[in-house]
């Protein structure tokens, strides 16, 4: 492999081991993964292009990586299998840790970010200028701008401003033919694509002025929550079902009443419990504290129309026999991202595998209720049609044009490869 001395890189076996992971810990699936061969940490766009040049020259595959804080496997390197044989192609990882700068355009309320910029670092700087992010993920203390854009999804602020895809103004993309800037309709080739069509080297994201926000808590059912959340022009809405409150109490050592609860962040005045609302708001970055209870966690995350959510939660209660709970971040368009947690000890293999089946059951249930998986990534690439809908064919054609040898993050997003095949079978087998 060509050495590019000036770009920080490592092929140390330990480093390769450490970079071959995200937050998921899926059983068995690790058989479909390999260790990356080398990790590059470019410092600027020129170095990203240089890494792509090396990949092209060597016929290597390229996996871009932000902070690795997702659980869909978008940054995992799958074994490259073609015609039932390992291709032998090397895998290069591009880690964006060193490309974390950003600029704030106060006048136009836009931030221009390098891919590795961390959401909460941006927020802290924005606040000094009386600006704030419109949307951010609940992993904001560590997750990166390009990481969330490349995966797609909803988070804090989505109730008013939609998903991250709705807030990207422009992207700068590097691929084997150079660099391009894309905006408008063309963005669909890159948003939520995990880098399979090109590597994000710059992102322009909309921000807003800071406002005085109120936080209210309501002890209401999911059905009642829908009415409150979508009744006004609110900034964010988070629903915790009773099961999740119980898990939270156990893991935080708190004593919140163990019943369904809704938190609304809004500039409006509402007749809710401010203390309760603030308590939930303050803990918004700690959804995975419940992992302590396993120790370990199995999660399911699906986006459903709001009116389907109450029935979906009821189905989960009947279906999942172990203690579990869900949190829902509501989004514009009367929908909600439902994240369900099932603490499970990953050292107990069989029990852990069986718990994972619940995640697949939850997905099947959500689809029956007009829901879609939160993201595709690696694990759910078989769901590309469900997530991308009519855009899928166009994206597949586009992929062939910009990456004819399927070197850019293969095995992700599109319904091809061993993982997509295995997950399709698994879905069929699991009742």
């Amino acid at each position, binding site marked *: 492999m060509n050495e590019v001395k000036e770009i920080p890189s490592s092929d*140390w076996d330990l480093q390769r081991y450490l970079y071959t992971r995200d937050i998921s810990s899926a059983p068995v699936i690790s058989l479909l993964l390999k260790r990356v061969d080398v990790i590059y940490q470019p410092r600027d766009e020129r170095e990203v292009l240089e890494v792509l040049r090396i990949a092209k020259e060597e016929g290597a595959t390229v996996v871009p990586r932000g902070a690795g804080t997702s659980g869909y496997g978008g940054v995992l390197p799958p074994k490259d299998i073609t015609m039932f044989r390992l291709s032998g192609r090397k895998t290069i990882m591009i880690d964006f840790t060193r490309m974390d700068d950003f600029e704030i355009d106060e006048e136009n309320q836009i931030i221009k970010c390098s891919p590795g910029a961390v959401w909460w670092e941006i927020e802290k700087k924005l606040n000094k200028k009386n600006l704030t992010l419109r949307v951010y993920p609940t992993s904001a203390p560590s997750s990166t701008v390009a990481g969330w854009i490349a995966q797609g999804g909803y988070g804090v602020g989505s109730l008013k401003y939609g998903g991250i895809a709705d807030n990207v103004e422009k992207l700068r993309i590097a691929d084997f033919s150079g660099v391009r800037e894309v905006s408008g309709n063309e963005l669909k080739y890159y948003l939520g694509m995990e880098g399979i069509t090109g590597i994000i080297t710059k992102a322009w994201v909309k921000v807003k002025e800071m406002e005085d926000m109120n936080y209210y808590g309501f002890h209401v059912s999911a059905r009642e929550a829908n009415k409150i959340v979508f009744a006004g022009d609110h900034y964010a809405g988070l629903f915790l079902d009773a099961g999740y409150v119980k898990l939270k109490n156990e893991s935080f050592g708190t004593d919140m009443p163990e019943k369904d609860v809704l938190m609304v962040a809004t500039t409006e005045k509402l007749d809710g419990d401010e203390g309760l609302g603030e308590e939930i708001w303050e803990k918004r970055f700690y959804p995975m504290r419940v*992992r302590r209870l396993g120790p370990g*966690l199995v999660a399911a995350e699906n986006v459903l129309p709001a009116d389907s959510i109450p029935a979906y939660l009821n189905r989960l209660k009947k279906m999942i026999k172990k203690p579990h709970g869900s949190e829902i971040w509501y989004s514009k368009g009367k929908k909600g991202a439902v994240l369900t947690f099932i603490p499970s000890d990953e050292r107990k293999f069989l029990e852990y595998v069986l718990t994972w089946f619940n995640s697949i059951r939850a997905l099947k249930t959500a689809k029956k209720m007009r829901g879609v998986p939160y993201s595709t990534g690696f694990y759910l690439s078989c769901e590309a049609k469900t997530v991308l809908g009519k855009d899928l064919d166009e994206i597949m054609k586009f992929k062939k044009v910009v990456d004819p040898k399927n070197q850019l993050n293969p095995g992700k997003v599109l319904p091809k490869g061993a993982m997509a095949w295995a997950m399709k079978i698994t879905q069929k087998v699991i009742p």
Partner: protein
Amino acid sequence: MKLEKELEEMLHACAQCFYCRVCPAFQSIKWESVSPRGRVYMLKGLKNKKIKLEPKLVEDFYRCTTCGACEEQCQTALHLVELWEMARAEMVKEGLAPLPAHKKLRELALQTDNPYGEPKEKKEDWIKGYKYEENAEIMYFAGCTASFRAVELAKNTVDLFNKVGLKFAYAGKNEYCCGSPFLRTGQRDIAYGLFRKNYEEWKKRGVKTIVSSCAGCYRTILIDYPKIAKELGLEWNFEVLHTSQLVNRLIKEGKLSPQKISAKVTYHDPCHLGRHTKVYEEPREVIKAIGAELIEMERNRGESFCCGSGGGVKSQFKDLAGAMGKNRIQEAKETGAEYLVSCCPFCKYHLKQMADEQGIQLKVVDLVELVNNLAVKGEYKGEDIRCA
């Protein structure tokens, strides 16, 4: 590699969320092998035999100041500092640690009861001319750094005690290293021996309260010693104070009435005093009590950025310690303060060195020096600590 059940559970409870990216070592080096979540994953990999314990891995594992910034941010509230220290102890047992510089400290301490290798008799040289008791309820524990390298800190502390008429004992050459450098670097056996010697000395002298002006000693005596005592079946009923707490108490009780000074001050929370033992407010209250204008650095209290010298990093990885220290000095400079105040001789020495290396005009002082020299004597002489 063996870990106690509770610590092993942490490996599975870790969400890998990377909130621990605030780690000063990771911020400097940028590779996962030095990040806290990387270290957790590494330990998991060792346990599952996915990777091998090798010298290079051990080196990266020791590139951590045990500052606890990771623990402060941890989404699953894991006791990470304890995990790092226990894992290091296992690495020592496996024969891949201590690292050369830490091994040398051990050899010196075995000979002289202090990690600087200074003759025992010299430990009490600094206190000549000051009044103290052989036996008293309050014991001043100067610590090795203030006794041998940062004598101005020890001198200012007892000078202040003498001025307020505080009756205290000092063990002199019978004060032994608290064992902090060894507990932090996995060399637990020697720390147990040092604990026993200090413990017996305090019991013999009828001590009820131990006061330390070193954040590292304070953390060790407050947190580690009771655990060791329990393990050894010994009674532990000492009150442990840091000088900043005592000075604050003296001011509040009206026993010390420092004059007001006019100075802009920023305060660096030593990791062992702040995150480890949650003493955040008392030093700030003292600064405010002497009338100084306190300007906070962007990262303060629980989010304070480590100076880079702890956990055996400065002795083994000077460049890394330097990178962290320079980062912190820049942050202090941005406040526009005249004084950078800390409560730890280790932090003070390292930060002063980093300020000097960068040519940054910042008076780096300990809180006690500031109070005793400026607010009590009325002037700061700028006497520097002497370092090897």
